[in-house]
């Protein structure tokens, strides 16, 4: 593997781990004792440390090691996780991020880091250290002399009745054991049951020993002491609590590829001896495999249940991971993009074949073309699916934004996420991060009131920002709603008047005033904050969303809050379209937006009674494409026209067209920068004939028609 791609993989892994660490830390804010979250934080630091070590990034190793050490103490319950500590850990996460970027950017692993980065790291570590128990008493994990009872190895020896006859001297084992450490207490019991013959026989061994032992040994070492007596003695060694904790940690940090069956796992970490395992396996096979090996081991007294449980968890997790790894392949997004481009060409080519087949008039060929068409559309759907990612990953990063911003402003805000599993094209998701961040910051900064204001208004002191995603007619809809103060229309209007956007005598509907916030240069807050900036944002937000062929609407009630509704196309590459003809042009409407097609009665569409028709009792405004698109084309009244009813958001309008050509797969080609300011046309697509059809943006067409209600010929693309 080349090192660059290895580094990229490292960067990607770090990003994932840091995200999970952040999620976990935020979860810990709610429940500081959540063991899963504690483990996640620990694991993130531990894994980054390990991988950074492979690359030789010493600063990362040193820093993550320190944080990992702290998390270890937190897990052991030696340090209480306070809000300050969580805040410090969040900053540690950010610092790790910066360290990794700095190390990756450096030419060599040994390169010196910027002094301010080093200083920041040292400062953070000092803050972490404050959370530790007073360092005068040495940390418990390093102490040689542990309190009695908790840290003793409990060894039980039951010699068989024939032990003496086989030349076993129990005392010699005890003496040897004493040389390894300290025999804290030894209890001797005579077990009459052990006698194999009635009456007391001096050559029969009735002895049982219970030994409390303290020493710096591990279980296999202890087991080896009694190895010689293995045949004549039932040996049970139970680890002390401190070793127990060590096992748990070892289990946690075992690399996935070393996780095998549970028995081997326990032997590997030294919690179980090979002999104990073999004995248990023998019992298991004798019983016919009814009980799990872990149960038998616990029954035998070889191991504590907690360790077995943890081992089982680790095993399951490793198994899942292996399965996940087998299920997922990391693919370069560029390769995927290239694949989708090629499929786009394939769609166009197969449309060309269809045209040729029609011209040739060979019936048999038509069937083959149908088959190819079907396959191509399947391939297209599958390929586009590859780029779909759940939007939840993007949403969850806003938790941090909300938390940090709320703390900074002294507000209490909860972020509620709905529909995190909704899938969206990755390229769209990436381009939505900035607009969403801006809207959420706006909601935090301008929307949600400080707690005292909220209480005074009879609202709960904690404000809520709800992020919701769902699918709707070929679009994904993202809503950002807060229960804050709502937008102040009077202020917006005053500002707009000051800027000369609105005349003082102009009457504007509430909705129109609200929409003024999308005009460049309008900010309702007199004093700009560093959070939502100086009001340069909303127009940029709108532009970004429109660049994705999306729309944004807003609703706001004073005192109730503000809701932004963003509708985005599912993908940027290929759509199912419906082709229509108007004049000598061919136009494609996204199929998902087409509700129905009806024939237009000539007297209805004359325009004498306004540009609307009665569609089964519904008032349906319409746009005649050739009127809007003119100029210079005669309105041929002879032709039969059709109404295509289209839907966007909550609105429905009809387009009057000359011809209906039917469905097609349209590969969206950008029109280029020359047409950047053109409204109403979303792009172009190349037809099977090689001709170009333009893709209509229904929402923008409706907006143009609304601005120019008379719809004279050659209406300009305003704004």
């Amino acid at each position: 593997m080349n090192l660059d791609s290895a580094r990229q993989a490292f960067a990607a892994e770090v990003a994932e781990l840091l995200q999970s660490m952040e999620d976990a830390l935020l979860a810990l804010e709610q429940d500081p004792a959540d063991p899963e979250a504690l483990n996640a934080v620990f694991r993130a630091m531990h894994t980054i440390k390990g991988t950074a070590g492979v690359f030789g990034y010493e600063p990362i190793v040193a820093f993550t090691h320190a944080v990992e050490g702290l998390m270890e103490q937190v897990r052991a319950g030696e340090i209480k996780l306070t809000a300050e500590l969580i805040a410090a850990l969040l900053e540690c996460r950010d610092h790790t991020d910066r360290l990794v970027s700095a190390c990756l950017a450096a030419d060599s692993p040994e390169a010196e880091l910027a002094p301010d980065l080093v200083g920041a790291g040292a400062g953070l570590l000092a803050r972490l250290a404050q959370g530790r128990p007073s360092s005068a008493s040495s940390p418990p994990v390093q102490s040689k002399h542990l309190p009695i009872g908790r840290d003793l190895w409990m060894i039980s020896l039951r010699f068989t009745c024939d032990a003496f006859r086989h030349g076993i001297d129990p005392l010699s084992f005890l003496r040897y054991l004493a040389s390894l450490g300290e025999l804290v207490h030894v209890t001797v019991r005579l077990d009459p049951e052990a006698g194999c013959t009635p009456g007391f026989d001096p050559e029969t061994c009735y002895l049982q020993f219970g030994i409390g032992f303290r020493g710096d040994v591990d279980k296999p070492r202890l087991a080896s002491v009694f190895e010689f007596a293995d045949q004549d003695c039932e040996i049970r060694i139970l680890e002390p609590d401190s070793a127990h904790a060590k096992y748990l940690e070892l289990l946690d940090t075992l690399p996935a590829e070393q996780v095998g069956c549970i028995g081997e796992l326990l032997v590997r970490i030294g919690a179980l001896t090979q002999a104990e395992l073999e004995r248990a396996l023998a019992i298991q096979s004798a019983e016919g495999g009814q009980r799990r090996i872990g149960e038998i081991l616990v029954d035998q007294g070889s191991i504590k249940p907690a360790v077995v449980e943890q081992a089982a968890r680790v095993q399951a997790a490793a198994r899942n991971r292996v399965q996940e790894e087998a299920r997922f392949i990391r693919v370069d997004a560029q390769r995927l993009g290239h694949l989708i481009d090629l499929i786009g060409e394939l769609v166009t080519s197969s449309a060309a074949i269809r045209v040729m087949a029609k011209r040739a008039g060979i019936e048999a060929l038509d069937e083959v073309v149908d088959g190819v068409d079907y396959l191509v559309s399947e391939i297209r759907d599958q390929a586009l699916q590859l780029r779909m990612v759940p939007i939840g990953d993007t949403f969850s990063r806003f938790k941090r934004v909300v938390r940090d911003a709320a703390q900074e402003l002294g507000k209490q805000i909860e972020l509620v996420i709905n529909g995190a599993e909704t899938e969206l094209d990755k390229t769209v998701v990436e381009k939505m991060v900035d607009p969403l961040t801006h809207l959420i910051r706006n909601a935090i900064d301008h929307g949600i009131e400080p707690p005292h204001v909220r209480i005074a208004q009879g609202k709960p002191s904690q404000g809520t920002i709800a992020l919701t995603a769902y699918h709707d007619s070929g679009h994904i809809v993202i809503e950002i709603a807060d229960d804050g103060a709502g937008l102040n229309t009077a202020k917006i209007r005053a500002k707009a008047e000051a800027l000369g956007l609105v005349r003082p005598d102009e009457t504007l509907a509430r909705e129109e005033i609200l929409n003024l916030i999308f005009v460049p240069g309008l900010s309702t807050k007199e004093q700009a904050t560093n959070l939502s900036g100086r009001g340069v944002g909303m127009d940029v937000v709108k532009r970004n969303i429109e660049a994705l062929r999306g729309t944004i609407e807003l609703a706001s009630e004073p005192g109730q809050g503000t809701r932004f509704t963003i509708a985005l196309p599912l993908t940027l590459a290929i759509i199912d379209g419906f082709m229509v003809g108007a004049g000598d042009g061919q136009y494609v409407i996204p199929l998902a937006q087409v509700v129905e097609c009806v024939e237009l009665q000539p007297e209805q569409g004359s325009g004498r009674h306004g540009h609307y028709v009665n569609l089964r009792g519904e008032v349906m405004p319409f746009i005649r494409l050739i009127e809007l698109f003119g100029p210079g084309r005669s309105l041929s009244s002879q032709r039969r026209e059709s109404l295509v009813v289209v839907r966007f958001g909550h609105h429905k309008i009809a387009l009057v067209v000359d011809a209906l050509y039917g469905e097609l797969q349209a590969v969206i080609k950008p029109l280029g920068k020359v047409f950047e300011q053109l409204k109403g046309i979303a792009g172009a697509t190349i037809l099977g004939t090689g001709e170009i059809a333009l893709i209509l943006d229904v929402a923008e067409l409706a907006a143009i028609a609304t601005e120019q209600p008379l719809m004279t010929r050659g209406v300009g693309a305003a704004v």
Partner: protein
Amino acid sequence: MGELIAVQRSGVHLDLNAEVGQYLTFIVASERLAVPIEVVKEIIELPAITRVPMTPEAIRGVINLRGSVVPVIDLGARLVRRPIAPTRRSCIVLVEVQAGEDGQVLGMLVDEVKNILEIEREDIKPPPSFGATIRTDFIAAMGRVDEIFVIILDVDQLLSIQELAALRALSAEPVAARVEDGAA
């Protein structure tokens, strides 16, 4: 197109000497115009042009260039506000212009492509301050060839993406009027 090939056959070779520049000449509204050969990517026969509604006349439409959608600028409309009436000799000269970070390929619809000329540096004169039939800021220089002047166009100005994007359809008078003002 045939003419261009003929020129190449006639043995015009690329001379990298800065003293002599090569220019592609063509005709728009009876005017002999030239652009530096370096900006020209390709010359194609007139394909079907799809008109884009709600755009000014200068933007003739879009063409399908081997699977890409390429905008075509009508130089007649752009230079003298008289759209080109396509004939068999009409051609599209494809050029690449800078659009922000990256390049964008644009087509220029012209009446007729003539030939490639070599013009020496000393024969290149600054544009006249008035008297030209086209907007002065579109003119990079005048080139003298056999006592005749050809107008060397400033492609970046002529095909400025920003300006083209800002052009509105006919009904949006203010912008169109401004364009007219500029045409001295």
